[in-house]
């Protein structure tokens, strides 16, 4: 349409469309599974239909014709399937996924302000070629014991699903949930019931049903859940807080009751709702918080100066304490806003596994168990490529072919599991495990030209060597091939975490990524070293010691690791940071920060300690300033970036240098 500027709608369109496309993926996977098993999945079809319908509407609002065309043609096919005019052929999912990707690419083009390619003809032809198969529903109609109103409100696919339940070894059951004010007060509502019932049954449909208001139905409304289950009646009834259940089977029809108009949107209205936020806005909030923290330092310093000058500052100090608490609270709110559920981060993986397994000629199932674990968006963004790498490696190299597996007595379908849980307030553990062939230490040692590793830690060291990752050969390395050095780099350097591995020949391998939950705000110790100020995370320092020059022993030679200092009866290496950074002379430092590296202490010598602070850390992303041992920069109140040191990493690199 001429004369209307759509550019301000574009970012909104892009955000909405990307969300919708994201949500469509699990539906496509579910549909795939059902179609392969010879079943229908009316819910997935309906969701996909709605998604494409919405995308079509949005696209026409911003006048992007190619997306309108693709989504319209797909929507047509899905609508037919939804109305029970036939069952989708198994290949339908591949076409569906291709169409989704095609829309995704065009949404990406809009985001980058590039011209949008027109809809590809071969894709449209493929969609048009999806001929629905005759479904067998007509034979099963009569075998359902449903009252007319319920029967009328179900789609033919849903009716078929309920009718064919016995073939799967399950029963089709109807159970009614009656909401009430009392129940609401106890947190019992249709959503909680859905969740409870959903754990022991598959919900085909939930229908709101109007009833005259009576003490038994105080709200004049009840919810009828039509489910497929092999659980006991009592368990189902309990989950729905109902008196009993009805098995839906062939018999005479029941008398009808007045029918509610089916709402267009099945969602019950929820209080609260969601807001979508662009990450830049969150970063801006963090920056402002950082400035507030800086201001507080300055205030504290001024108040301290007034106090020393004899001023009356008690009230001011009380106010400052309150402010400190509020800033802490604000900080946790902001951090929580920045977190995303780990399940969201991982939700594309099943589709990835499907494609990779197909390409490799293997059968692999992916299980994701992340519960409610949440992680900062910045961490999530970096974590995902590492997880994708591990999963791909598992599918490509670790899991054996179905024949090989059967020969070993394993199920022909391989299993890759991802579990994720919060180890503590600050740490997240994510495990990627497979039941494949495990890693052969001898083969890896041969490839690397090194002695055979004696334990998993040494094996991991070899496997993550950059040189090794360019040699890939599934059969001889019997395990990981490409890119393991990248995974370690992400976990350790970018995220400041750890990568561990356990492997058993013939049984499988487990990789564990331990990463901090949030990168953004740290408690740090500030110190000076040759007149320059640095900070180090408090969590990294196990002890701060005064260095007694008489207790320092220097080995002959001039190497950086020559000094040892006495600490609790042990000799701890003492490295002067000033010397390491070539900032100063070789005097014995006055104080040392002790860190633990692989279970052993290391001391890093500094000049003066400046106290503990809470700072917002920003990463130094540019390659020009990405160096070993510096994990980012913070602002201590003087407007200049103060480097955040990663002493553990420094210690590690010193050890490697010494050994190399």
């Amino acid at each position, binding site marked *: 349409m001429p004369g209307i500027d759509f550019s301000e709608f574009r970012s909104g369109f892009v955000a909405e469309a990307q969300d919708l496309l994201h949500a469509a993926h699990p539906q496509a996977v579910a549909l795939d599974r059902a179609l392969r098993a010879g079943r229908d999945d009316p819910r997935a079809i309906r969701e996909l239909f709605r998604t494409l319908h919405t995308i079509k509407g949005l696209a026409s609002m911003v006048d992007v014709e190619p997306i309108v065309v693709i989504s319209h043609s797909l929507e047509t096919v899905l609508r037919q399937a939804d109305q029970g005019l036939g069952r989708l052929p198994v290949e339908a999912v591949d076409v569906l996924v291709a169409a989704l990707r095609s829309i995704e690419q065009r949404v990406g083009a809009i985001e980058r302000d590039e011209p949008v390619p027109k809809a590809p003809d071969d894709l449209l032809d493929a969609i048009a070629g999806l001929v629905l198969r005759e479904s067998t529903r007509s034979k099963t109609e009569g075998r359902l014991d449903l009252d007319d109103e319920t029967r009328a409100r179900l789609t033919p696919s849903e009716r078929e699903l309920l009718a064919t339940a016995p073939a799967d070894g399950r029963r089709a059951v109807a159970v009614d949930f009656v909401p009430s004010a009392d129940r609401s007060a106890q947190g019992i509502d249709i959503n909680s019931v859905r969740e409870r019932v959903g754990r022991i049954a598959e919900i085909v449909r939930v229908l709101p049903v109007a009833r005259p208001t009576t003490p038994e139905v105080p709200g004049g409304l009840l919810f009828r859940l039509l489910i497929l289950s092999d659980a006991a009646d009592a368990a189902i009834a309990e989950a729905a807080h109902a008196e009993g259940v009805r098995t839906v089977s062939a018999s005479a029809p029941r008398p009808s009751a007045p029918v509610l108009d089916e709402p267009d949107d099945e969602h019950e209205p929820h209080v609260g709702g969601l807001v979508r936020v662009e990450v830049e806005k969150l970063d801006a909030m963090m920056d402002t918080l950082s400035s507030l923290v800086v201001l507080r330092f300055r205030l504290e310093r001024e108040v301290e100066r007034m106090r020393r000058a004899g001023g009356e500052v008690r009230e001011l100090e009380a106010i400052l304490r309150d402010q400190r608490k509020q800033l802490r609270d604000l900080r946790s709110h902001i951090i929580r806003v920045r977190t995303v559920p780990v399940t969201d981060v991982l939700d594309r993986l099943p589709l990835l596994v499907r494609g990779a397994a197909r390409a490799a000629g293997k059968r692999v199932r992916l299980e994701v168990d992340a519960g409610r674990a949440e992680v900062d968006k910045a961490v999530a963004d970096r974590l995902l490529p590492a997880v994708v790498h591990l999963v791909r490696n598992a599918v490509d190299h670790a899991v054996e072919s179905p024949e090989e597996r059967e020969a070993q007595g394993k199920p022909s379908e391989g299993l890759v599991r991802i579990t994720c849980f919060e180890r503590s307030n600050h740490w997240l553990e994510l495990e990627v495990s497979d039941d494949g062939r495990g890693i052969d230490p001898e083969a890896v040692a041969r490839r690397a030209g090194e002695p055979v590793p004696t334990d998993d830690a040494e094996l991991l060291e070899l496997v993550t060597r950059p040189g090794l990752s360019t040699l890939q050969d599934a059969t001889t390395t019997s395990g990981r091939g490409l890119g393991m050095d990248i995974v370690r780099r992400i976990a350790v350097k970018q995220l400041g975490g750890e990568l561990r591995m356990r492997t058993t020949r013939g049984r499988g391998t487990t990789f564990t990524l331990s990463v901090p939950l949030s990168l953004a705000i740290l408690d740090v110790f500030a110190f000076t070293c040759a007149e320059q100020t640095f900070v180090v995370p408090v969590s990294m320092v196990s002890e701060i010691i005064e260095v007694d020059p008489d207790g320092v022993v220097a080995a002959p030679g001039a190497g950086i690791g020559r000094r040892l200092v006495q600490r609790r009866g042990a000799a701890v290496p003492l490295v002067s940071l000033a010397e390491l950074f070539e900032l100063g002379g070789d005097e014995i430092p006055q104080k040392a920060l002790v860190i633990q590296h692989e279970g052993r202490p290391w001391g890093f010598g500094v000049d003066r300690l400046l106290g503990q602070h809470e700072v917002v850390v920003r990463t130094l992303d540019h390659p*020009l*300033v*990405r*160096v070993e041992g510096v994990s980012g920069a913070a602002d201590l109140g003087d407007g200049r*970036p103060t480097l955040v040191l990663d002493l553990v990493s420094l210690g590690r690199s010193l050890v490697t240098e010494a050994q190399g």
Partner: protein
Amino acid sequence: MTALHVVYRVGDAEYVIPAAEVVQMETWSGATPVPGSAPWVLGVAQMRGALVPVVDLRARFGLPPADEALDHRVVVVRRHDGLVGLKVDRAREVLAVDEDAFEEPPALVQRAGADAGRVGGGWVRAVVRVGERVLMDVDFDRVVEGGGFDE
């Protein structure tokens, strides 16, 4: 067609960079040195809310250091890998330059640059004449690459 270019000076020579790539021009107020980075990287500075690495172009171009002068500027440019600050001796002028007026640099200049041993290692991409002046367009991908000890 013409495009605006910022003219900056390093030592005795003058250079141009398309104004579209320049995000801001700051006076030089120091940077936090990053141990382990290349000697011609002055460090990181806080600019526009972002952490910007600052490159000392005098040092990078092989010139001896100059006394600090008020004229010194940091030209902050947006590159594909983020913002980078370029410390120059002077940056005060903006010129409209005809794109077609850019010429290939003479052969000797083409090979100039620290990586001159490599094929196509020159840092100067093009030159343009404006009146009596000869202004050079530098290939910053070459100048800026090869920084710290990132493995």
